[in-house]
């Protein structure tokens, strides 16, 4: 290989309490399309932020075009020729396409004025070269998201980028737009531009990328030719499961209900959200833990949110205890007996300024009040009960919830839902980011609740937790159900095999 364009050597980055990157290296040569993959918390975004000058590494060195470089700020990286394309387009929506393409380096005519005619003509040429058929005089916001992304790409190339970093560029694109994007990416690579491509969609990686680097828990676990790594091995590297044990199983397919099966309490049919879910169907029975398995971006959290009405759907039905839910709002779902523990505890769970007590009783307030006046006595009884039962460690119920540890915050949220006496509990990553002791306690609690007859839906990126916790696993990939495992088939191997299947269409 010729001299690499980008050469990251032993980079480490520490945040308070976390080693986000631990001695990570990455080399990308000219014209190479390099896949960067890993699950949540693997360190992908930290690495990208170091490459683009947002963070500085604590140790290690980034070499760019053979020279060691330190970018003080994102602008420096851009000026040096490292462009980044994010999911959301970072352009000026109200300006014309041509203006966006030439922003900051507009062709000048006489008297130093912008030569609009020339700018539009050159913009048209650039766009045509990438096969983007849009009028450069249109304002950018008039274009579809895919076309906007193309313009962002064209701009990146037009500013003489040597490296283009693409972070999940296809997550909001139509299939047709994805094809155009791929063509542009190949064109860029043909011109010797190095590309770092981040995506969770395995099909895309195999179509586009030459080499792959897998990160896990801040460490590089693999670098090599992508073609020599089959899907199963790639997934087991990402999830950190031993590949030697994995044998290919045929999928059991959708299991028939066992004869003695209980009636499902939740029936989900054909749940669809544009770009995110494509006809997700599954059942959940009382007294059973149903796992939702899948890689990051497979639509697990979206499914849970759509079920409780926190996310608008384009189609599909949700039946709870035989009753169809017509009003799809979280309040209606709660009345129907559902409760959902969201994945992002901080953004969607706790009310940071309120006390432990108020966070616990939040959803139950109307039940713990009389004529709109809250009853402190009733609250204290409930709070005492659940703090004891879930062993919530706080100085007092009046302590601010934001001062608790992650594990105890999670228990506070569990208590918030349990004091509503739900019949269905959806748990999205209930043990993420909490310490080992609290994790075991939460897992034991889930088991106990299911044994008491509660229906539980468990989402977890931790395969071991999923396999041990769930009685049945619905496997999702790219927003669709690709398999359902029951009984003895609930194994890590089977989940990975289902995830590694080739996509049937596309």
């Amino acid at each position, binding site marked *: 290989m010729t001299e690499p364009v980008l050469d990251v050597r032993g980079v480490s980055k520490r*945040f*308070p*309490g*976390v080693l986000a990157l631990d001695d990570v290296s990455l080399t990308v040569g000219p014209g190479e399309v390099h896949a960067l993959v890993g699950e949540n918390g693997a360190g992908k975004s930290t690495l990208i932020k170091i490459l683009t000058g947002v963070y500085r590494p604590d140790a290690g060195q980034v070499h760019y075009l053979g020279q060691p470089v330190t970018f003080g700020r994102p602008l420096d990286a851009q000026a040096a020729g490292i462009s980044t394309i994010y999911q959301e387009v970072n352009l000026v929506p109200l300006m014309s396409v041509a203006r966006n393409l030439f922003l900051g380096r507009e062709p000048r005519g006489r008297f130093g004025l912008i030569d609009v005619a020339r700018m539009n003509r050159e913009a048209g040429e650039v766009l045509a070269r990438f096969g983007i058929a849009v009028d450069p005089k249109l304002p950018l916001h008039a274009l579809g998201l895919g076309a906007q992304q193309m313009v962002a790409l064209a701009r990146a190339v037009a500013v003489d980028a040597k490296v283009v970093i693409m972070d999940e560029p296809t997550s909001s694109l139509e299939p047709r737009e994805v094809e155009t994007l791929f063509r542009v990416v190949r064109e860029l690579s043909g011109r010797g531009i190095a590309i770092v491509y981040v995506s969770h969609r395995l099909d895309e990686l195999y179509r586009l990328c030459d080499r792959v680097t897998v990160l896990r828990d801040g460490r590089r676990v693999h670098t090599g030719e992508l073609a020599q790594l089959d899907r199963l091995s790639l997934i087991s590297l990402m999830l950190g499961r031993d590949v030697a044990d994995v044998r290919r199983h045929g999928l059991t397919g959708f299991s028939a209900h066992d004869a003695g099966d209980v009636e499902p309490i939740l029936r989900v049919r054909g749940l669809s959200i544009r770009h995110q879910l494509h006809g997700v169907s599954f059942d959940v029975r009382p007294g059973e833990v149903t796992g939702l398995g899948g890689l990051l971006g497979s639509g697990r959290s979206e499914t849970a949110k759509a079920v*409780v009405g*926190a996310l608008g759907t384009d189609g599909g039905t949700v039946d709870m205890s035989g009753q169809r839910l017509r009003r799809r*709002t*979280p*309040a209606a*779902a*709660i*009345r129907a007996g559902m409760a*959902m523990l*969201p994945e992002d*505890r*901080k*953004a*969607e*769970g*706790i*009310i*940071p*300024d*309120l006390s432990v007590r*108020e966070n616990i009783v*939040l*959803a139950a*307030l*109307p039940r713990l*009040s009389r004529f*709109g*006046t*809250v009853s402190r006595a009733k609250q204290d009884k409930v709070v005492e009960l659940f703090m004891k039962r879930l062993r919530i460690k706080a100085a007092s119920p009046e302590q601010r919830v*934001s*001062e*608790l*540890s*992650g*594990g105890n*915050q999670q228990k506070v949220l569990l208590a*918030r839902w349990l004091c509503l006496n739900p019949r269905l509990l959806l748990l999205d990553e209930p043990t993420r*980011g*909490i*310490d080992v002791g609290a994790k075991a306690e939460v897992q034991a609690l889930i088991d106990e609740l299911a044994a008491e007859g509660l229906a539980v839906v468990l989402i977890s990126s931790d395969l071991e937790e999923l396999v041990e916790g769930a009685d049945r696993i619905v496997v999702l990939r790219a927003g669709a159900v690709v398999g359902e495992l029951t009984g003895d088939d609930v194994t890590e191997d089977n989940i990975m095999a289902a995830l590694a299947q080739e996509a049937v269409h596309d």
Partner: protein
Amino acid sequence: MTEMTAIPAPAVDRAKPARWLQDYGVYAAVAVLVLFNVAFTDNFLQTATLRTQLVQVAPVVIAALGMAMVIGSEGIDLSVGSVMALAAAVLPLYIGYGFWPAVLIALLVGALVGVVNGTLVAVVGLQPIVATLALLVGGRGLALVFADGQLKGITNPTLLELGTGELLGVPYTVLIAGVLAVVIGFAVRGTVYGRQLVAVGGNRAASALAGLPVTRVLIGTYALCAVLAALAGVLATARLGASDPSAIGNLMELSAITAVVVGGTPLSGGSIRVLGTVAGALLMQLVRATLINHDLPDSSAQLIQAAIILAAVYIARERRTR
């Protein structure tokens, strides 16, 4: 990385003086000013002086109470001054039907504006500052249309009595402001609505997921704020003895926001300090009165008020930097 929210003990200790200032700074400042005036201002403790101060501050307190609730919901309401003007403009139109119908209609007009504000924020999704800016401009314009752009004298004896009369030596306006402060204080602390309001202000996404009626709470809050502003407009009109929609409530939105911020309610929502708001309004009133009593020009009063606002915001920032 949420697990890092557990704060180490030393950080708490270092934040202690700032926390104390935030919790009690405004009361301490009021106390210092009162003591200063008792010592150095002639006749400060006389009933007439005190009464003038309280009567002047009462409309600000009432408007600020509503503002505190809106700010607690992570919003802001720039239209309170215009709502006061609207209420003032509506009064003479219906005073012919008697005192109560006229006052009720004035309050109803306020509620209507509040519902529009709340709907723009909670349903349409506009930023509160933009949504209420529209009514800041439009509301006063509408008030001038209602009033034909004219100042109208009030002759209704009940309305005039409301402005100048008193009960057991306490002016009605002051009494009303005091009762409202107690009622709002209870509403925020002890009712389902109040607790839901604070939760929505603290984390809207989490509140929605917990099944709280977020839209209803927000619209209700903006409506309540506007009703309080309309009441302030009625009282100001009664005291003046005339409906003057071009002058009543001018810059009231800023006085109300100042009282709330100085009183220690964070602009980022999730916490409402009712007593602090009352103290904030009193503090700003006292600062001005003190300086005027000592023959300093109004301009210096404004500069000192600006300094107090900056100090309040700075102290509030201290707590948030965790």
